[in-house]
């Protein structure tokens, strides 16, 4: 291999992993400029911060790979959280009574209710997209508004508060590694890891996952191969909906309150996370892992800007530029 070839190869690798390199640069700069960035404490903090939106990003990732999208995730997180919280809110005795009537700990009912609400929206989106043959963008634009309205109706426009401690314990709970050093891993992190592993497995190792890639890559080819495209789409939206419902319920449990305005514009963060991580917007290409990287980059950038005292107005500009540069770096030869 001569020098030129080595250069070529280097270029290729750099291009392929441009995002990761950019990510490293950001991390190193932050490490140098701030004192607290490179501490285990901060690592766990970042993990915790990533986890809820991270779960939603994983769901989005799966849909983007399938050549679809879901604009409703932010609102569905809200309505799921609100619905779940109602089951365990001392301020809403009729719902709490309903939840208690099942004879099991209302906390489980709440978790289930949240996930089911997400699933219901998944079914709704999936059915209309698969059977109605309407572009996902437009269906989920509609359901985004519907879910938000429902969140307001259910909560009567006010945050659902006074949640049972056992429920808020889900989000607040943590695994303590070292009491003295204050090292804890939040519960939500384990949920996140679980979701990442599960969806990775499905995408790589299950037929369903392969069909998601096939549909995203070439829908008519998938159809010609005898794949029940409609069923796969429905299934994917249902799975994504459940994950979003879970993310919403976990967030609410962390927040100890369910504001109906919650999750506004989270769909954009989730999409940005996927794209920054390298999931192709055209479908058919991408890994769950990419969405994890993207979600981390977004959280770390936010943290970095807060740490470096970047003014709020300028933060928006930086964030916008980073979204564009990330993809630009990925697509074009930057060296």
């Amino acid at each position, binding site marked *: 291999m001569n020098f030129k070839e080595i250069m070529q190869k280097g270029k290729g690798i750099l291009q392929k992993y441009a995002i990761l390199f950019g990510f490293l640069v950001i991390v190193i700069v932050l490490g140098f400029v701030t004192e607290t960035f490179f501490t285990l404490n901060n690592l766990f903090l970042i993990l915790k911060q990533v986890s809820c939106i991270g779960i939603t990003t994983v769901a989005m990732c799966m849909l983007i790979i399938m050549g679809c999208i879901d604009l409703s995730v932010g609102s569905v997180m809200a309505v799921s959280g609100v619905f779940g919280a109602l089951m365990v809110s001392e301020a809403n005795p009729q719902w709490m009574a309903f939840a208690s009537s099942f004879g099991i700990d209302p906390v489980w009912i709440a978790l289930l209710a949240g996930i089911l609400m997400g699933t219901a929206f998944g079914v709704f989106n999936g059915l209309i997209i698969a059977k109605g043959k309407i572009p996902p963008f437009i269906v989920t634009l509609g359901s985004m508004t519907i879910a938000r309205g429902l969140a307001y109706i259910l909560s009567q426009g006010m945050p659902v508060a006074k949640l049972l401690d056992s429920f808020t314990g889900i989000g607040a709970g943590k695994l303590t590694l070292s009491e003295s050093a204050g090292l804890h891993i939040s519960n939500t992190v384990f949920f996140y890891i679980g979701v990442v592993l599960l969806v990775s497995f499905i995408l790589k190792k299950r037929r369903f996952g392969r069909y998601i890639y096939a549909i995203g890559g070439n829908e008519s080819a998938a159809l010609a191969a005898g794949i029940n495209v409609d069923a796969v789409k429905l299934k994917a939206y249902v799975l994504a909906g459940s994950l979003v419902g879970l993310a919403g319920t976990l967030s609410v449990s962390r927040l*100890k*309150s369910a504001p109906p305005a919650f999750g506004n514009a989270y769909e954009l963060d989730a999409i940005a996370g996927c794209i920054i991580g390298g999931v192709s917007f055209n479908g058919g290409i991408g890994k769950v892992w990419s969405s994890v990287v993207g979600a981390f980059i977004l959280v770390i950038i936010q943290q970095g800007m807060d740490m470096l005292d970047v003014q709020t107005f300028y933060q928006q500009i930086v964030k916008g530029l980073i979204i564009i540069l990330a993809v630009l770096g990925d697509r074009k030869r930057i060296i």
Partner: protein
Amino acid sequence: GDTADTSTDTTDETVADTASDTTDTDTADTADTAEPVLIGCSIQGNQSTFMQYVVSGMFQYAEENPDIVEIDVVYADDDATKQCTQVETLIQEGIDALVLNPVDPDASAPAVDACEEAGIPVITVNTTVNSDYVSAHVGSDDVESGRIQMERVIEVCGEDCKVGYVNAVIGHSAQVGREQGYLEVLDEHPGVELVAYDTGNWSGDETMQLVENWLASGKEFDAILCEADCQLVGAYVAVEDAGLLGEILLTGMDCTDDIMAYIAEGTVDSSIWQDGVGQGYHSVRIAIDAANNIGVEDYMIPYEVCSVDNYESYLTKIEERNALAAEYF
């Protein structure tokens, strides 16, 4: 109350930088060596201009006292999750006290819990949070603002007038409090007819469309109340277009420049004055005390009605406020 040394930990020597800053030895150090106290300020967002005045007040205090305080301001884009996240980051950075302007009374509570865990005192500003740990609150009561605005309307229009009001973003603490104030007063005055209400989402444009449509459907009003001046500008244009300026009393909150000009013209009746700069200023002052383990108390600044009758007396205040905000943003 003085709650700053609730962190009665026993493992002082092993406690890493996070939790130790507020221990007695540390604060003593701070006072002696005159190393400035680091105050974290977590602001709900910049959807309404009002918070900028509050932050200006904070900066003003910090600038006046560079030796004793340093502040670090972050904005949460009206997202409680983001606020909790940012507060966690602030704690990581080692703040000595937190000034919290909660996105939501309940949803922002975990941010306070996090401070409690780290032994960092919390002062809330403008909006309260549902937590016992908060050392003091600086602000004005939202319910009160709704009450005095509605009372002003009834005072001018009489006991049997027809009113409509435009809510801020539904679920926001200011909206919840102010609407509660409206409804309380309406309850006390059964003669007043509530013709219509809806949300303008803190947008002038949406409010304009809403009021245009109200008027187009033949609804009649003696007064329209807006929960923020940034909405009132839209209501103003709608009423003006319908040729009803002067016939419908208009009132808002926050005394922004454009509305003050309308009040001077006499086309808008009033706006509610809330001393944002003062809230910010005093919140930092009190936070420093809390960080230094000095006992602190709530500090309430009352709302005032700024109307066609008395607006001159507010002009200089507003000028100062705007100059200050322009300096920091």
